[in-house]
């Protein structure tokens, strides 16, 4: 029980830190984002005093309110889901804009990350088990893919598979003309078809990391005494590899998930830019290009909260898999 309290406490602190960074950044930075944003907004249409107020709270401005009371009103706004108005998608609110784009990113990145993890850990397990095998010697080659900038690899693959061979579409998240978004079969099929190439590039560029980590842990685990015991008992090698060695070797990969999740998000922003995918990364960049500060801060907050949530889920799952973490806490 103490373990869960500790974890929840930690993520509460992290969430508070993220909210505070989000509050402080626009106030620390040079320039006056509120004026820029409000002038852009009023160019698009009428801005209600409430909208003006919530933007001022998000980004900071010369008001008679003290910083402390601004901070608490800001927290109140955030928890009620009021993140201001978007310039880019005027007159949509920031919350609505994010709600539209977030599912695309979560679906694409979620599936790609899970595939990459499963394939990488599986191959790493085999490479660690048969050291010096073909697979093991493949690892340095696979790390080459990691050293290549992701977007470069993605652009080359995009060029090859959509311009030269025309197997996949060049951009977008689904067939805009032929289908209507919703839970219908043609739309889902087109979404999968459009998402395959982005997912493939993400898997290609991230699989080597999982593979290398798993392989090194396998090598360490295989020299443990209980593996010798298992061999001496005459268990089948396959059983030793999977239930004895791999099960323990996978633990650091799982707990290292937290670190990689940040890279996953970074990868998604760049990937969406390359493939013009209608996800949250693409929206963040168009917000940046339009000086749409409210949307930008909102997206940063949502991305951070999603990453924190995913980390919390992994941590809780981890405690189920490895009982020692619960005992130690």
């Amino acid at each position, binding site marked *: 029980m103490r373990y869960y309290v500790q974890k929840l406490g930690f993520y509460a602190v992290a969430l508070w830190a993220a909210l505070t960074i989000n509050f402080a*950044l626009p106030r620390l930075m040079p320039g006056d984002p509120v004026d820029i944003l409000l002038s852009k907004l009023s160019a698009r249409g009428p801005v209600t005093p409430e909208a003006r107020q919530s933007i001022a709270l998000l980004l900071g401005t010369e008001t008679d309110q003290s910083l402390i009371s601004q901070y608490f009103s800001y927290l109140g706004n955030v928890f009620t889901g009021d993140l201001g108005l978007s310039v880019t998608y005027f007159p949509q609110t920031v919350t609505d804009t994010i709600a539209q784009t977030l599912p695309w990113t979560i679906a694409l990145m979620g599936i790609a990350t899970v595939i990459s993890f499963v394939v990488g850990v599986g191959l790493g397990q085999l490479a660690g088990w048969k050291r010096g095998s073909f697979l093991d010697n493949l690892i340095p080659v696979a790390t080459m893919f990691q050293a290549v900038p992701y977007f470069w690899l993605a652009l080359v693959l995009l060029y090859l598979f959509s311009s030269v061979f025309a197997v996949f579409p060049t951009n977008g998240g689904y067939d805009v003309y032929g289908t209507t978004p919703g839970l219908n079969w043609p739309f889902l099929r087109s979404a999968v078809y459009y998402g395959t190439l982005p997912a493939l590039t993400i898997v290609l560029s991230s699989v080597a990391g999982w593979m290398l980590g798993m392989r090194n842990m396998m090598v360490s685990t295989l020299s443990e005494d209980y593996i*010798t015991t298992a061999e001496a008992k005459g268990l089948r090698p396959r059983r030793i590899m999977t239930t004895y060695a791999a099960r323990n070797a996978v633990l650091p990969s799982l707990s290292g998930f937290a670190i990689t999740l940040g890279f996953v998000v970074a990868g998604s922003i760049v990937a969406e830019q390359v493939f013009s995918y209608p996800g949250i990364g693409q929206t963040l960049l168009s917000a940046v290009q339009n000086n749409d500060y409210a949307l930008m801060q909102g997206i940063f907050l949502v991305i951070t909260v999603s990453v924190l949530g995913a980390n919390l889920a992994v941590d809780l799952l981890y405690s189920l898999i490895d009982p020692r973490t619960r005992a130690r806490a």
Partner: protein
Amino acid sequence: MTTTATDPDVVARALPEGRGRRRRGLRLPSPKLGVGLAICGLIALFGLVGPLVVGDPDAVDNVGLAPPGGGYLLGTTQTGQDVFAQLAWATRGSLVIGLVVGLLAVGLAAVFGVIGAYAGGWVDEGFSLFSNVMLVIPGLPLIIVISSYVADKSIWLIALVLALTSWAGGARVLRGVTLSLRSRDYVSASRVSGERTWRILLVEILPNLVPLLASLFIFAVIGAILGEAGLAFIGLGASGSWTWGTMLFWAGNGLALRLGALWWFVPPGLMIALFGAGLAMINFAIDEIIDPKLRLQTRAARRRWRRPSDVGSSGGAGARA
């Protein structure tokens, strides 16, 4: 007072086989280190000397999109700029960013990881909470948000922001290792014999962390160069200076791939890949120094150590042979 970390027993424990290797003479731990050092050295030399001999990378000529050959070694861009000259300056720019970020990130990681773990108590609690929070807050979105507020970004600002968002992972690793080092007998002995804290940290603990710090540095450099390239690609790179990332940005903007101008698009990416691969090889070699279990891994190496009839047997035996 005379207890030092260069005590042979301690070194032998930290680096098993270290003494044996030394007796055989100065041999590189593995060919990977040699290859990696050669690649990175050549690229660094290019970044150092290249800009001195090439022309102005911004100079515009009226032979746009000329393929390699003729007056231009690597062809020209859309506006007739010399790709080779750009590559030389970009190499320098990217290496500067990598170096600055690497040093800053490792420095921050060492401060928060080593000092926290050694001091213990609430300092450790605070430092480790801080680095864990920094670890879970996603870096690139934060960088994007920060850099969007600043219109005119220098290469130093980019480096600073990259460093501030990339040190936390290293701090966590260093903290773990320092925690185990600080309870070793020789550290307790030097504490009892009245050595100053900073001396224990610098002379007793730090030398044992050197391979780890080197590996973290390499990771930070790769991460910074890739991070800068990604940032530049989405249009938020350093303004007014050349890096591999800004080169790729202009190549992407000028539709280099669609126009078939491979000589414009490929070289910067290839340089990043080569440099990254070189650093990764050095890192593999360092890993093998830290953890000798990883060393006997290639088929050739295993043949050297074991009879050929053993090679096919189950992998678990390898480490104990």
